[in-house]
């Protein structure tokens, strides 16, 4: 333990810190930014683990695409300052207990499983060439299926995002006002 | 198989005919399964069903045959006079035929699972008939009826599965649902009790025996006439048939199960239930003004005696009980038919508002009187021989006080049935009944004919079932049951 390399320690510390900030920040925009930092540090972990291609993809997909999507939605809906109802302490405690018990159990499980040494390290598994071979060989069908999944998700997202033809926002607003009155 | 397929075919046909189905056609169709079976035989089969080991075995014993005769002879009469004309006639007839198919299956099945399936299948058409065509609070009443019987049936299913798991494993490494295999299972007393209890509950609810009768009077009263006839005339017999063939014969061990050491065993308990039902039903029937409810409670009283007699496990009592099952089917259908004929004309069935029908329709009065006398068990009507044998068996089986109390039924039955007859047919003429239509007349005449014929010649039936009964009783005695 004592001889853990500095980069690993720093990165881990940064990741956990950012994760905590994501959870605890009141402002969703801050959360998004902290999450992006966390993703960056995870990508750095990938580099340390010799999975360079994965690191790049992670940056592009998560930090790039997904998080931008989040930001976009946040700004679109102008939720930045939206006051989130504060939950009571009881909620915080019960949530902490639940998450804590999972943590406890997972670590305990690992402890009980005993020190199994995985030492068959290889520098080359993370290379694009190897990954490509396996992906288009062994995992070809799942790959194609994930393509189908994407199309489905895309269609779904478009359908959901699209306004119904008869649904005018003004009408919805009027209705809402009526309800309030 | 012939019977079931023909019934299903007639059901389908009458549904398809729709409004074109008239009463004569329906009656002809109703006769079809019975006649077909007379010509082709009932169609004993033994086919693999769910698997090679859960089979569709249809091979009625003699008791089952008697019940088949009842079913296939009575359904035409129910079709003839039980259902009213109207837009729903073909639907009602179709459901009746569907029910006929299921009932035929119940009385023929020689395989536990097949029995259970037919048993539940019979519930479906009557459920819809009661739901669609009942009066009053039909949803609540039908739901109660359905749930009550269904819960009982589930208990039976559990017991059947347990028995199945205890059957000997055959050469091919599988258990069996075959009747003989189920019967061969040896159970300990406690085991037997739980298995027996499950089976018993299903039958006790269907019969219904005294503490399980809460669904009965409301359902009988509010169901449409044809439905009530099916319920009381035939479906009730499923319970009694099951009680002996599928409960006593499969789990005779349970009868010896002691609740209170050496003092009250399961069999005594059932006898007490029967006795309680006899008196309870009779007392209540004496004060009913709703004709249908009166007959419903009289039915409770009569089946209590039948259950008692079955459980005497004596050849006379058991034979008498089977005979009475047939007879009660005929009489109950006859009585409900009478009430329905009156209700059709008056629009109500309040006995206090009736009177003097005998003047305007003497034929109707005479036919009703015959059916009433059959129910009262006057000698030379069909009710007498069975009741005589049953009371004799109960009285002679060592429980004298029980026997005397049970025999009070002949007094009480006279009280309430004659009250029924007197309030409706005698007294000052309050209403004039329009004459019977041809179908009502013929249906009642056929029933009255059966009442008289079986009253003079009960031996025809007794001869037919006797060897079967002996066989059962011996089997029960051998398998460690009790023959006191």
């Amino acid at each position, binding site marked *: 333990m004592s001889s853990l390399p500095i980069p690993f320690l720093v990165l881990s510390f940064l990741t956990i810190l950012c994760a905590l900030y994501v959870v605890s920040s009141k402002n969703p925009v801050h959360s998004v930014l902290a999450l992006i930092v966390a993703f960056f540090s995870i990508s750095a972990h990938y580099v340390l683990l010799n999975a360079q291609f994965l690191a790049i993809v992670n940056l592009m997909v998560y930090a790039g695409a997904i998080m931008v999507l989040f930001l976009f939605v946040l700004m679109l809906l102008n939720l930045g300052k939206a006051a989130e109802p504060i939950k009571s302490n009881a909620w915080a405690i019960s949530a902490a207990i639940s*998450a804590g018990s999972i943590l406890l*159990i997972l670590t305990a499980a690992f402890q009980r499983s005993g020190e199994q040494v995985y030492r068959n390290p290889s520098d080359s598994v993370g290379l694009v060439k190897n990954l490509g071979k396996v992906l288009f060989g062994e995992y070809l069908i799942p790959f194609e299926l994930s393509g189908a999944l994407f199309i489905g998700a895309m269609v779904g997202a478009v359908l959901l995002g699209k306004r119904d033809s008869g649904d005018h926002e003004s009408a919805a607003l009027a209705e809402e006002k009526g309800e309030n009155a | 198989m012939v019977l079931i397929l023909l019934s299903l075919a007639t059901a389908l046909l009458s549904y398809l005919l729709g409004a074109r189905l008239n009463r004569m056609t329906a009656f002809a169709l109703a006769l079809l399964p019975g006649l077909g079976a007379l010509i082709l035989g009932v169609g004993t089969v033994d086919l693999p069903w769910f698997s090679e080991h859960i089979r569709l075995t249809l091979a009625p014993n003699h008791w089952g045959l008697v019940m088949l005769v009842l079913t296939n002879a009575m359904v035409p009469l129910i079709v003839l006079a039980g259902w009213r004309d109207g837009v729903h006639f073909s639907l009602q007839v179709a459901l009746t035929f569907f029910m006929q198919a299921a009932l035929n299956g119940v009385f023929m099945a020689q395989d536990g699972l097949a029995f259970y399936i037919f048993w539940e299948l019979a519930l479906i058409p009557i459920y819809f008939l009661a739901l669609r065509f009942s009066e009053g609070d039909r949803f609540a009443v039908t739901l109660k009826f359905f749930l009550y019987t269904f819960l009982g049936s589930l208990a039976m299913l559990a017991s059947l599965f347990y028995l199945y798991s205890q059957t000997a494993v055959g050469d091919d490494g599988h258990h069996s649902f075959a009747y003989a295999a189920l019967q061969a299972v040896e159970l300990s007393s406690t085991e037997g009790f739980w298995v027996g209890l499950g089976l018993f509950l299903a039958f006790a609810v269907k019969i219904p025996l005294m503490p399980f009768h809460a669904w009965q009077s409301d359902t009988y009263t509010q169901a449409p006439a044809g439905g009530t006839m099916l319920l009381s005339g035939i479906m009730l017999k499923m319970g009694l048939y099951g009680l002996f063939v599928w409960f006593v014969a499969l789990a005779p061990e349970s009868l010896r199960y002691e609740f209170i050491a050496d003092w009250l065993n399961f069999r005594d308990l059932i006898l007490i239930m029967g006795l309680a039902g006899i008196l309870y039903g009779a007392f209540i029937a*004496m004060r009913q003004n709703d004709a249908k409810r009166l007959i419903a409670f009289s039915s409770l009283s009569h089946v209590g005696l039948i259950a008692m007699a079955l459980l005497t496990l004596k050849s*006379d009592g058991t034979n008498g009980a089977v005979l009475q099952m047939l007879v009660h089917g005929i009489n109950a259908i006859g009585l409900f038919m009478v009430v329905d004929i009156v209700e059709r004309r008056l629009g109500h069935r309040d006995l206090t508002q009736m009177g003097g029908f005998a003047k305007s329709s003497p034929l109707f009065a005479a036919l009703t009187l015959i059916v009433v006398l059959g129910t009262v068990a006057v000698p030379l009507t069909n009710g007498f021989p069975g009741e005589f*044998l049953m009371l004799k068996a109960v009285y002679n089986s060592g429980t004298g006080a029980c026997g005397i109390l049970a025999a009070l039924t002949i*007094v009480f039955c006279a009280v309430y049935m004659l009250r029924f007859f007197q309030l409706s047919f005698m007294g000052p003429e309050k209403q004039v009944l329009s004459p019977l239509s041809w179908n009502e007349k013929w249906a009642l005449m056929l029933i009255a004919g059966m009442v008289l014929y079986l009253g003079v010649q009960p031996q025809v039936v007794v001869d037919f079932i006797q060897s079967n009964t002996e066989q059962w009783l011996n089997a029960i005695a051998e398998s460690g049951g009790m023959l006191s």
Partner: protein
Amino acid sequence: MGLYALILWPLLGFAINGLLGSKLPKTVVGMIGTAAVLIPFVSAVSMWGAVQEGALVSRAFTFLQVGDLHIEFKLLLDRLSLVMALVITGIGTLIHLYSMAYMAEDAGFYKFFAYLNLFVFNMLILVLGANFMMLFFGWEGVGLCSYLLIGFWYHNPEFGYAARKAFVMNRIGDLGLLLGLFLVIQHFGSLDYQVVFSEVAKVSHPQWVYTSIAVLLFIGAMGKSAQIPLYTWLPDAMAGPTPVSALIHAATMVTAGVYLVVRSEALYALAPVARDLILYIGLATSLMAAFIGLKQNDIKKVLAYSTVSQLGLMFIALGCGAYSAAMFHLVTHAFFKALLFLGSGSVIHGMHHEQDIRRMGGLRKAMPLTYWTFLIGTLAISGFPFLSGFFSKDEILLHTFQHSPVVYALAVFSAGLTGIYMFRMFFLTFHGTYRNSHYPFEKVHESPALMTIPLAILAVLSVLGGLLNLPHYLTHNMAEGLAHWLAPLFVFGDASVHVEASTEWALLGVAVSVFAIAFFWMRHKYISQGAVAEEDADMPASGSVLAHKFYVDELYDSLFARPLQRLGEWMYRVLDRKGFVQGTDALGAITLWKARVAARLQSGNIELYLIIMVLAAALMLGLEMFA
């Protein structure tokens, strides 16, 4: 065919009249009905000789055969059943004839004859049956016919109620009979008379068997023959047409109980306790009914109570073991009581349905034939010397004297009461002045010949009936004809009279003087003083109790009928509706309520779901790990 000829004719008559009667003219219906009874009478007479040789048996088919129990549909004509059959068909024929005139106006004419024929059929089955089961068939069958005929004028709910009461009371008796039959089967293995009685004759069973069977059979007889406590139906049964009262409720059906006991003589011989029971119940019934009869004002009710009283007398004889004496009285009673009922019917007919003797009087002049025949009947029943009733009653009294002087005294007292109420009724009806303001005396008319001829025949029989069984002291050659005729049937034998001739003469003197006292007292009161029975209102307390029949009906009502009704009511409203039905509904309601509680967990609060999900996952993982 054999004996079936006897019973099939009435059945045929029933079928024809019942099915086609409405379309046939009344005369034809009446002829058919009468012929259906007359033919069996003739054939029964013709079988007299054959029966003397030995009993005739004919078997038709097996009724029931289960295990060891074998019940045949079988007829037996022996000396006893021949006597019964002759009485039934003989008197039946006369009453059918009479009914043709009496019922001529009635719309239900054909139905009446159909029922009567059915009754005769059932009664013949009862007496001709060769086993207890056949007896039971007839037993219930006649009960049914009695029900139908009492309720013949069903438009009146009162009559319908009386009919129902009769049937139910009879059924209570039948219950006892049925239980008796079960015991017979259990112990003797058969219901066939020959088998059972030959078994009984071996005396191989414990005493209680005979006693309990005998008592149970007697309970059946109680119902049918209207003995205490099951007698209240018979007076109410007078709601039926008068010929019915004559045939069923006087001459034939009600004597079935006597027949049953005589038939089962072997059993009763072995059951002295049961015999004592019969004796005392008969005595009590006889006295009680006679007392009630003193204050009845309905002409038919008086006769009805007199019937109950006379039946009690027959049972007294049976209790003493004097079977032939009971049979003798049965026969003579059938003659004179049928005569009296038909006579009263003639009066009612002549008075246009007036039955209250306080509204009659002086009818002697208007209906002389009825008067004379009625007089003969009254004399016969009251024990006027050398008429039939005198001999038969006297023989019974003789037996009671032998049995116990106390019983004798009470029986004589009862016989005296008979004379009193009979002459009271007789004088009030036929003597004195006419007292009916609603129906002028001029309109009162003598009945047609069809009614008076049967009256005359019965009157002759009432006079000569004593010839059947004359006592020793009168003749030696013809004495005890009936007793000798019946003697071969009895297994253990009839009680015989073995008192001194002088004692017999003394007893005879007592009987005659009792009759004389009754006659002259009544004559004095109702003719010389011209007294009239009180109206209901101004009746003294003791008379009121009698007029209300000791309030027995009310007692039964409040003791059995009403509690049962209330019990039934309570069971339905409380136990069934509130208990079972609502209890079941409550089970459903509880399930629903539980479901609603469980549904609250499904709050729609996603966070809660999540926490529960996570905790459950933790729990499962933990269990997986640590368990």
